[in-house]
């Protein structure tokens, strides 16, 4: 196991030549910037793959009657759409941002374990190659939902072991990545950067990494037990053998609930970097924000069964999980109030990163409201497994996590490329995305309340109008993302970016040139410079 400093010594050897030329630079990379770039590009590709599946889903659901796909294939689409978006788009995007920005933000030359970093990334294309190949197998791709409940998931055809294997691979990638994040943050901060002095993006990633090393192994355990039930004669979840299908749900959601916080905490971190910059005002309540994020992370471990309110849980259990779930609203609210207080009496400008961040605050809050409604158990009896839930989680994931990823991309793009991206195109991308995302997902609240279940390829005719609107919104949203691709492709045409890029920015990452040199902070930043950059 080498350290980043040793690598830096080696690299100084090669520095005058720059990075290796050709594919080897990428295949064998141990550079956090290159690995970050690969994660981000991979995630963008997966976003479009998952998005294509969403297009299939929304095309079929545009009007009642079955027009385009068979129900089995529809179920594969919903299953694969979720697996790809969660594990292939959102999570790798945040890991990409972490790889790029954490070393820069703490004044470290690279991640602590650069070779493990390489494997963390390269496992992913293999995992998703395997998962996507199941579309071509007899029996088709998995169609039991991304939640993989037994016994249904055991009815998957030839694809089953490949599903399990690819989930194991994704898990290993995440676990290695989060070990790297923890080790880097704990051991490689610049002198004088105490934990509480770290930027919020670094803090939220530290917390996220702890969640990851705890719960990804639990998912691995759960799918291992599915595998042995299917092939090795065990009966963990099979009633006929004395097992319990509900136990799978407990284990899965013990992973699954922290997982959704894993997908949102880095988003909180990104937004906490951007809003202060464009308000020209320090983040309000920095320490409070750290405590709130930690509180959310802790609570995320004890609420899992709110995904299981109709499973037949004893009353005491239902009461406990309802109260604990409602409690999470408190630290989450604290964070929202702090962002608003940061804006309050600032001097705001509205460049694209700020627009996405502001939309995040608005629309994530709406997602949070439907989350609070879902927490109320008797009401959840009516919402569970309906489109109300679909509306809730898409609000927190799309104008939540995805918008934060876009915000971060726009914010840090000039640091990565050395040029200002096309602001007009960025704003167009923002407005199109925001309008269409609401058109797509807001009507789903009504559909759920009116009684439309989830995961159905066709529906009773009274659900037509809102479904049609949602499908139009989805197509619009999908097409709007091409604007983002255009921004990326023309990213290097803009004017050269300064070191600081944005007038109100603070932090060590803005003390290095734009584009950031392949090696940065090969010697730790001087305490004085470090301290000023924190202010």
């Amino acid at each position, binding site marked *: 196991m080498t*350290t980043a400093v040793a690598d830096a010594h080696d690299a100084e050897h090669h520095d005058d030549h720059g990075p290796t030329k050709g594919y080897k630079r990428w295949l064998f990379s141990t550079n956090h910037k290159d690995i970050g770039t690969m994660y981000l590009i991979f995630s963008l590709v997966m976003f479009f793959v998952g998005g294509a599946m969403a297009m299939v889903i929304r095309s079929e659901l545009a009007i009642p009657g079955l027009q385009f796909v068979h129900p089995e294939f529809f179920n594969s689409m919903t299953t694969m759409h979720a697996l790809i978006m969660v594990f292939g788009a959102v999570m790798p995007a945040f890991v990409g941002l972490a790889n790029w920005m954490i070393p820069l933000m703490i004044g470290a030359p690279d991640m*602590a374990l650069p070779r493990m970093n390489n494997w963390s990334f390269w496992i992913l294309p293999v995992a998703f190659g395997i998962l996507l190949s199941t579309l071509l197998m007899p029996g088709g791709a998995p169609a039991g939902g991304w939640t993989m409940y037994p016994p249904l998931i055991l009815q998957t055809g030839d694809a089953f072991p490949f599903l399990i294997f690819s989930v194991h691979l994704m898990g290993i990638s995440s*676990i290695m990545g989060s070990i790297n994040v923890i*080790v880097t943050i704990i*051991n490689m901060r610049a002198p004088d950067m105490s934990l509480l002095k770290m930027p919020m993006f670094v803090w939220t990633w530290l917390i996220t990494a702890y969640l990851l090393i705890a719960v990804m192994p639990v998912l691995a355990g759960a799918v*291992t037990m599915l595998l042995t039930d299917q092939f090795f004669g065990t*009966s963990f979840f099979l009633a006929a053998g004395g097992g319990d299908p509900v*136990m799978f749900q407990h284990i899965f959601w013990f992973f699954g609930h922290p997982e959704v916080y894993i997908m949102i905490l880095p988003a909180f971190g990104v937004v906490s970097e951007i809003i202060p910059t464009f308000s020209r005002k320090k983040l309000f309540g920095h320490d409070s924000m750290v405590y709130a994020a930690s509180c959310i992370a802790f609570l995320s471990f004890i609420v899992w069964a709110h995904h299981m309110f109709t499973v037949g849980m004893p009353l005491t259990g239902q009461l406990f999980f309802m109260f604990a779930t409602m409690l999470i609203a408190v630290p989450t609210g604290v964070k929202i109030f702090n962002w608003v207080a940061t804006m309050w009496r600032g001097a705001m400008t509205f460049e694209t990163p700020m627009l996405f961040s502001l939309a995040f605050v608005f629309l994530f809050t709406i997602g949070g409201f439907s989350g609070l409604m879902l927490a109320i158990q008797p009401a959840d009896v009516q919402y569970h497994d309906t489109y109300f839930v679909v509306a809730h989680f898409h609000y927190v994931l799309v104008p939540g996590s995805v918008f934060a990823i876009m915000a971060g991309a726009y914010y840090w793009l000039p640091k990565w490329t050395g040029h200002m991206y096309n602001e007009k195109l960025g704003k167009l991308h923002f407005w199109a995305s925001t309008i269409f995302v609401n058109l797509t997902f807001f009507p789903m609240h009504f559909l759920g309340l009116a009684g439309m279940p989830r995961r159905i390829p066709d529906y009773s005719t009274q659900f037509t109008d809102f479904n049609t609107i949602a499908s139009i919104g989805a197509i619009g949203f999908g097409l709007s993302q091409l604007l983002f691709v255009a921004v990326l492709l023309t990213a290097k045409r803009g004017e050269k970016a300064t070191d600081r890029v944005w007038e109100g920015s603070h932090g060590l990452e803005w003390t290095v040139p734009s584009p950031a040199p392949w090696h940065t902070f090969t010697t730790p930043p001087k305490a004085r410079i470090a301290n000023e950059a924190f202010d």
Partner: protein
Amino acid sequence: MDEQERKKNIRRTALIAAAVALAFYVGFIMMGVMRS
């Protein structure tokens, strides 16, 4: 802190984190075994 010490710390943190991950994996499977 010198390089050797930093390397040792990095190794130690990484091993602890890996041990936590392993503990959760094995622990949950054991729980599955004991409950069935």
